[in-house]
């Protein structure tokens, strides 16, 4: 049997040591009435060669289209070293570092990661990851509510420029604890929250304010004004950020008054798109809030010989100690992704990451130029943006995008289901992986699709 090393002789000797006549006998505490047979819904075994062929055929059928999709998951160059090292057995097949002395590799990596995330976000401390950006956002809301001991309300202001899926996930996860996500409208001209929009919450008991920068549309929010408004009212500020953008954009820790909790999707840092996961959520905060932070945290300490070493710390926040009163139920996190991201950030360094961000931005500017030169396409907003833009068409986006997809170009995310008020609009993104030729191909495919549909 695959992966089972027992020889017939082994089984015999082992049963003898146990004093059982058969393996079957070891299951004699299970009521006979519910014992089942082999699961007929599982096909018979395939060898590695056979499943390999099947998977290769299936992968080939998914193709490798030219993609301008972003919307929270970004195609970046991933250095070959990242996964060559992250998949080394010692990282790949280790458990959570409960036995610190036998897990210094993982622990030190996490400590380095925490340092990098804290610095990128401009915060003091970071955890060892949450599941993904969306669920990290949910945890941030819960944490902000815990931090805000003044507020009696569970109302959190969440601009509608925050990723719709993040809002959905946060709603699904936090509603059980009574949180209410108050959706703040955005300005359809500029694609961002106008600080004026906050006026209507004046005097209300608000538990927290969330800000995504750049927002879902790629537009830059006026973070200082928003953050300042909250701090003046002693409302904790939750920042949702794209880590790549932080090479160019002011880190949340430096927003006016500073963010209290910063979360984001770590995928851009060396993690493959992989249909949505595994990615990782990161979270950073101020030192004063560290005990309210969910997730694992690694600290540096000394061993009995006085040598430095690393260990999980502040575990009293966590489910395995605090149980029903833990900051979160999270246990398994996204460790291997963190290892990959730490290697990625080490290879990129501050200047490499800045180049990635600059290149993405330049490519998106090029994209914007090329597409808006196509008749029938215009930019939805005229605001500063980072590496992602909303484009409006003179007819519904879905069939145009479908026509592109037929030519193996994924042109963007149709916004109609999410933001009907924007009319025929889609969100497109170009990262450093795109060349001028790619962008030209995209633009001319759009041109053709629009004229074909005209003809039709």
């Amino acid at each position, binding site marked *: 049997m695959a992966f089972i090393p027992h020889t017939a002789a082994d089984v015999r000797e082992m049963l003898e040591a146990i004093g059982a006549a058969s393996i079957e006998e070891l299951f004699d505490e299970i009521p006979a009435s*519910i014992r089942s047979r082999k699961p007929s819904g599982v096909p018979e075994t395939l060898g590695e060669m056979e499943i390999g062929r099947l998977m290769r055929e299936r992968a080939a059928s998914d193709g490798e289209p030219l993609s301008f999709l972003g919307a929270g998951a970004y195609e970046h160059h991933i250095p070959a070293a990242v996964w060559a090292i992250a998949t080394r057995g010692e990282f*790949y097949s280790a458990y959570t570092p409960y036995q610190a002395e036998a897990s210094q590799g993982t622990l030190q990596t996490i400590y380095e990661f925490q340092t990098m995330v804290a610095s990128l976000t401009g915060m003091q401390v970071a955890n060892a990851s949450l599941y993904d950006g969306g669920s990290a956002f949910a945890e941030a809301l819960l944490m902000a509510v815990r931090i805000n001991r003044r507020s009696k309300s569970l109302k959190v202001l969440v601009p509608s420029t925050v990723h719709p899926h993040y809002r959905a996930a946060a709603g699904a996860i936090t509603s059980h604890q009574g949180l209410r996500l108050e959706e703040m409208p955005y300005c359809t001209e500029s694609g961002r929250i106008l600080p004026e929009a906050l006026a209507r919450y004046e005097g209300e008991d608000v538990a927290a304010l969330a800000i995504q920068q750049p927002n879902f549309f790629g537009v830059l929010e006026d973070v200082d004004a928003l953050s300042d408004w909250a701090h003046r009212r002693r409302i904790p500020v939750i920042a949702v950020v794209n880590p790549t953008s932080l090479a160019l954009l002011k880190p949340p820790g430096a927003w006016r008054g500073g963010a209290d909790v910063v979360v984001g999707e770590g995928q851009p840092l060396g993690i493959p798109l992989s249909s949505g996961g595994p990615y990782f959520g990161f979270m950073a905060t101020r030192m004063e809030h560290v005990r309210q932070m969910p997730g694992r945290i690694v600290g540096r300490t000394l061993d009995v010989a006085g*040598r430095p070493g690393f260990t999980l710390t502040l575990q009293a926040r966590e489910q395995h100690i605090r149980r029903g009163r833990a900051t*979160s139920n999270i246990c398994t996190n996204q460790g291997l992704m963190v290892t990959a991201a730490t290697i990625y950030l080490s290879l990129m360094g501050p200047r490499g990451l800045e180049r990635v961000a600059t290149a993405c931005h330049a490519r998106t500017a090029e994209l914007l130029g090329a597409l808006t030169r196509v008749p029938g396409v215009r930019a939805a907003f005229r605001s500063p943006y980072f590496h992602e833009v909303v484009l409006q068409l003179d007819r519904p986006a879905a069939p145009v995008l479908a026509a592109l997809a037929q030519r193996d170009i994924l042109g963007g995310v149709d916004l109609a289901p999410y933001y009907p008020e924007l009319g025929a609009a889609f969100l497109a993104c170009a990262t450093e992986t795109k060349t001028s030729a790619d962008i030209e191909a995209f633009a001319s495919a759009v041109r053709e699709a629009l004229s074909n549909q005209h003809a039709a």
Partner: protein
Amino acid sequence: MQPHGEKLIFEYSRPGRAAFDQWPRVPQDAAGPAGAPTRPADIPAELARTEPPFLPEVSELDAVRHFTRLSQLNFSIDTHFYPLGSCTMKYNPKACNALAQLPQFLGRHPLAPDSHGQGVLACLYELQEMLKAVTGMQAVSLAPMAGAQGELAGVAMIRAYHRARGDLARKEIIVPEAAHGTNPATATMCGAVVREVPVGAEGDVSLEALRAAVGPATAGIMLTNPSTLGVFERRILEVAEIMHEAGGLLYYDGANLNAILGKVRPADMGFDVVHVNLHKTFSTPHGGGGPGAGAVGVGPRLAPFLPIPLVGRDEGAYRWLTERDVPQSIGRLSAFMGNTGVLLRAYVYMRLLGRSGMTAVADHATLNANYLLARLIRAGFAAAYPDRRASHELIVTLKREARELEVTAMDFAKRLLDYGMHAPTTYFPLLVPECLLIEPTETESKETLDAFVDALASIAREASEDPERVRGAPYTLPVRRLDDVRAAKQLDLTFKPAASAEGLTSA
């Protein structure tokens, strides 16, 4: 002499050093990526970063060497026996990793159209079907990203179910006192009230206590079976009856599914919902902490509430099912589609095992645990439940050793590391004092188990002859025993260049 640890990556950093080949060309600089790029002019100054982030500036070789060396400081399944109870540290087949990393799978954007995803969707659909087969459930969602999120989904569905029926009083979630911490933590996250029920001397939940606990406020119970005590909950059918009669539902924590794969299905035990830790039973790697995947399966009552997205099939084509298809769904748990890459690994693993392999897993995991139990008892160790069959794991209590020799379970665990074996889970479940929860898994050979027994026996001898030796362990690892109290008191959670001057730098 030989450096024990490894410097921090920041300590290799030198201003101006870099892995230049990783830098993208910035369109402006056709000459190649040499200097600093021009900052985009269209980003307003007040929104721009002024200080570069504190990231290391190292060469590619520095990074490769550093992380390769770091990796070597870990124990792992690929290098060591790793009998961590409740964690099912079995062999992670290399094929699962290789095939989940095919370029088209890795490169596929989560929002790519279904037309460019029939391959991956087919795998996920079939994974749903196989999980239905092994759990006996009617429908499965692959959305949850780990066991704890599967629990959250499960309890949220139970609550949604009661709510949908207008049964708003059902706020209590019952958990046995030996439950894993995520169970009560999940109940809390779901806004439920946790009620603990005690476990009897033989490891079964007390039916009397359970009967006393249930009532109109009961939403459900969270159980794993075999339980965290390493024994099968024998009166599970009565538990189910009590719960169902009281109007509550049963949640199955699938962390221990390895024990019963193909032997008994959670649905047949009376469970209404189950989560499966694919990173345990189905051998996706644990990656030093994650990622995992906590698929949930449900019976007919909870099917309408499954978290999205699901994978459906219409006329031979696969597609994602969303709110529109599952209007009563408890919603989405992540931005996209959970840990798809983990799901692909589990899919490949299940296909490699196949139907007969499923049963074989439970058979040999159970055989290994019972063999260890028998041998350890013979070697003088005290089993927590000596009169019970072990499931896929077993508990030894070192109560006597702790009392008589002042050598604790922790000391045994640390000393085992010196013997080249990872320690079992210690001090969990909390119910059993000074316990070692030992899970060998089916992929380990008899010789390895024998070596483990020999090692524990040898430590027991050391404990009586030279207890200090055991208390001081480990000796042969990159660090000696670490000061956890100092870690929590003198918080050092990020590297600050100044701090190293104060002497905390790695040697």
